């Protein structure tokens, strides 16, 4: 049977973060029956892995902030299903990778913990869970306000959406909130190439990080407009990040949260009308070169 996942890990050599990436790759491969791609051999002889990459979803595991594995994937136009960065995982857990290359007990426990947090993501996909099972709950915007500038047209939903000044929105239904980025931000970023949504189960605070979006121009840290627990991510944008460019308020939603403090959060958010004013200022400032 073909491997469901194909893992492209960091070379994992002279920094502990790299060694941890390698350990996680081995652990994941053993647990899921995945195949591992040697990053160096892939670069030297890509045809060797061509059929593997066609059969399985690609999981990239980076070690340090240099993110060699991601770069190798990007250089070869590989479509990434999930990206795990050990340096970021360490930051989340207050674990400090040191200069050691031997994986001691502390490091082994850290890798185990990282795998425990990611395992449900891969197991849910294995079980064929349909993402966005509450799709019917969130209807698309009924009406948009439009701001035109030169050849650009920016849309802002008039009702049901709240924004922060970081150009992220939340659409609220009961105690659920769906979050994404605004039309203005997606146009600024241009062609989006990769999305790292927050992991399901993550507790996110208002104005806390909730993943990243990468385009050819920049890597953008998403700032959550609300506090809550991530209950679903939009799996469709992992396969097709361009959905955010095409339709940032509907098909391009990023994650769904169970809201825990929305009444308080709302005081720091902008409704569609007020966000439109902020958007106009941003467009004017951008064109003034500020």
């Amino acid at each position, binding site marked *: 049977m073909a491997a469901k996942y194909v893992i492209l890990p960091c*070379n*994992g*050599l*002279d920094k502990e973060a790299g060694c941890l990436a390698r350990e996680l790759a*081995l652990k994941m491969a*053993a647990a899921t029956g995945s195949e*591992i791609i*040697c990053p160096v051999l892939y670069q*030297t002889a890509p045809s060797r892995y061509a059929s593997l990459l066609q059969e399985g979803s690609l999981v990239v595991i980076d070690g340090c902030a240099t993110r060699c594995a991601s770069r*190798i994937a990007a250089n070869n136009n590989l479509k990434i299903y999930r990206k795990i960065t050990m340096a970021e995982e360490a930051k989340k857990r207050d674990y400090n990778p040191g200069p050691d290359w031997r994986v001691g007990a502390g490091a082994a426990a850290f890798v185990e913990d990282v795998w425990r947090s990611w395992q449900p993501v891969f197991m849910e996909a294995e079980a064929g869970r349909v993402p966005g099972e509450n799709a019917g709950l969130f209807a698309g915007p009924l009406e948009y306000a439009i701001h035109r500038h030169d050849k650009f047209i920016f849309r802002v939903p008039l009702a049901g959406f709240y924004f922060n000044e970081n150009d992220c929105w939340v659409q609220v239904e009961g105690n659920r909130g769906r979050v994404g980025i605004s039309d203005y931000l997606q146009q600024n970023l241009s062609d989006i190439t990769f999305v790292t949504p927050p992991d399901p189960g993550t507790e996110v605070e208002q104005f806390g990080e909730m993943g990243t979006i990468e385009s050819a121009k920049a890597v953008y840290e998403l700032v959550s407009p609300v506090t809550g627990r991530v209950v679903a991510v939009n799996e469709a944008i992992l396969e097709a990040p361009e959905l955010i460019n095409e339709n940032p308020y509907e098909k391009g939603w990023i994650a769904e949260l169970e809201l825990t403090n929305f009444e308080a959060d709302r005081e720091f958010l902008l409704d569609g009308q007020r966000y439109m004013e902020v958007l106009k200022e941003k467009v004017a400032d951008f064109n003034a070169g500020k």
Partner: protein
Amino acid sequence: MPGNSSRKVYVIPCSGIGKMYGLLGREAALKTVKELRPDKAATMCLALLVYGDNEARKEIAGARCITVDGCPKLCAAKNVEHAGGRVVERVRAVDAFRNHRGVDAGTAAHLTAAGWQIAEELAADLAAKVDRWYDAGEEQ
């Protein structure tokens, strides 16, 4: 010439992922630079060179390099040369098994005790090579 030998000798293994020989070479290389000859030897992550990191290429340019490869593809030797390193020794992990025929050294994920023993022997060999090239100076 004094000072010429001060530049460290690079010991660069292949990534060591996916095959036991690669893992063995990787462990031997790391033991050499981290434990046996930290003052004379350094290593570099091969993936940095492979994807064309400019800083890594500058660092390696013209430097004496001992490459350690696991499989016959010789990724380390080829990529280090391609990146501008001076490969003074091409070591193959498989050759370390000449005196250990039939030994179960482990898997791509873990070495057995026998595997670690072979890695230690290979590391000692690498350390001797580092000494030779470090002491010879850069013009050699």
